[in-house]
């Protein structure tokens, strides 16, 4: 974190905006050369569609539904991943038993378990949750194990010479010592979870014929498969990107609050 005044910060933001603004301008210029009635997306049409989708409330409710699934699936994965990661980091026996299982599942992409998830859990929220939880579990787990393994051994030894019990050492020394790595894992997991939900909803949408299970992924599917609307698809893509950006910023903020000793 560097110290900048308001003017410098504004200038920094301005520099970041130069290229996107240029690209959008070029895109609009290209679109204006097309014949009227062309289905190709154009910035102004996208803005107009955004306005329409916002006014009906359908975009907001779809985003909220996807986000809700992400938060819930991510929370489940985090609880499981951190608990298991602490156990694996603290006990060699647990680690040696779980490691082969985890390493053999890890290369299987979240989308690859979708067929089984749909067959077992249907095309609704349970499948979406399962995909999100599966996708975000590994980054949390692996970074937790890594963080625990990198906790300074001396801190554990020092705690033992202060008459501190093993359980307290786990919660008061190992957990905070591994926290920076755990938070990094959760931030990565949240990114993966958001990517996975869109893909899962797109796929579930295909299966359920664009039915009522909702979410922004399925909204995209409807605009792709039924009433073909490229501008609306671009709106959905932009929303996905902006939400991902906001989530990441939120996590960085939380990180700074939770680990003030890494200022």
């Amino acid at each position, binding site marked *: 974190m560097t110290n900048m005044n308001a003017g410098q910060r504004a200038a920094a933001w301005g520099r970041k905006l130069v290229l996107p603004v240029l690209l959008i301008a070029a895109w609009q210029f290209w679109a204006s050369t097309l014949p009227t009635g062309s289905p190709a997306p154009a910035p102004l049409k996208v803005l107009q569609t955004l306005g329409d989708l916002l006014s009906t409330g359908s975009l907001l409710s779809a985003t909220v539904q996807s986000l809700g699934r992400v938060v819930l699936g991510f929370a489940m994965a985090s609880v499981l991943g951190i608990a298991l990661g602490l156990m694996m980091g603290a006990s060699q026996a647990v680690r040696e038993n779980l490691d082969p299982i985890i390493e053999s599942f890890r290369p299987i992409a979240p989308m690859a378990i979708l067929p089984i998830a749909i067959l077992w859990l249907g095309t609704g929220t349970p499948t979406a949750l399962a995909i999100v939880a599966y996708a975000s579990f590994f980054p949390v787990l692996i970074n937790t194990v890594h963080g625990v393994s990198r906790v*300074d051994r*001396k*801190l554990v*030894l*020092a*705690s*033992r*010479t*202060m*008459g*501190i*019990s093993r359980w*307290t050492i786990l919660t*008061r*020394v190992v957990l*905070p*010592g591994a*926290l920076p790595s755990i938070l990094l894992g959760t931030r990565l997991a949240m990114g993966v979870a958001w990517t996975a939900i869109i893909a899962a909803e797109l796929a579930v949408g295909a299966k359920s014929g664009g039915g009522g299970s909702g979410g922004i992924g399925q909204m995209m599917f409807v605009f792709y498969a039924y009433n073909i609307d490229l501008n609306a698809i671009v709106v959905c893509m932009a929303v996905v990107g902006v939400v991902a950006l906001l989530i990441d910023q939120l996590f960085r903020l939380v990180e700074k609050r939770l*680990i*003030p*000793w890494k*200022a």
Partner: protein
Amino acid sequence: MSDNTPSPKLRLSGVTKSFLAPRTGLSTLAVAEMSLDIQTGEFICIVGPSGCGKSTVLNMIAGLDVPTAGVIQKDGQAVTGPGADRGVMFQDYALMPWQTVEGNVGFGLRHGTPGQHLNKTQRNQRIAHFIDLVGLRGSEHKYPHQLSGGMRQRVALARLLANGPDILLLDEPLGALDAQTRLILQAELLRIWGETAPVTERKTAIFITHDIEEAVLLADRVVVMSTNPGRVREVVTIDLPRPRAGKARTHPRFGVLVEHIWSLIRDEAYRAIGGDESLAKPTEEATA
């Protein structure tokens, strides 16, 4: 020191430690047949070339390592594991980076056995007292990364004392500091240990150092260890008057004692840095 002294604070009898190399399965003897009685209130320094098992001895007394053979007794009871009655100050201080000065000093009091009989107010008073004692008032809310090496060392010392151990185990606590800070903290250490107090009110301290002058300045007795395997070469009684802080270095005995201890470890020290032993020989004759 004779072996029939009644009830020493700490007794090491035939303490041996060998380590198994994980791959080769070969056993290395780190400490061999070490026997030593330490009385209440004594300040013992252990010196020796690197690899002589100094830290291993300290870890075994702390209960972090188990002797392969032999027994360590404290107040007549065999040591079986770590406990807050034997406080350790580690070489790199082992401060919790996520805790402030105040949190580090109070870590044992809040989470371990030392604070079990205290209520919250008493703990906080005790923490504040030891922060004052080491001169860190005003820095309570700083994190370790915001402190200088000397200040971190003080935090570690305050934490050690706040836990109220009756034996202080100090593993090269001043090793990483610059020369001036070192001089100041040596004097402070003597004050806190109780140099000006009657012997019965002093803590028992075991201090590891590679600095012979430091050992002579601080100790009642200096245990000189030799390497391969680590064993006691000689126990040198330091008969300099106390209090020593600031004055002992100019005492005529000081140089004699330093020279004597150096003569005991010189050969091995030369070998440890890969130097030729013949370089050491002439000086040995000159000082003999």
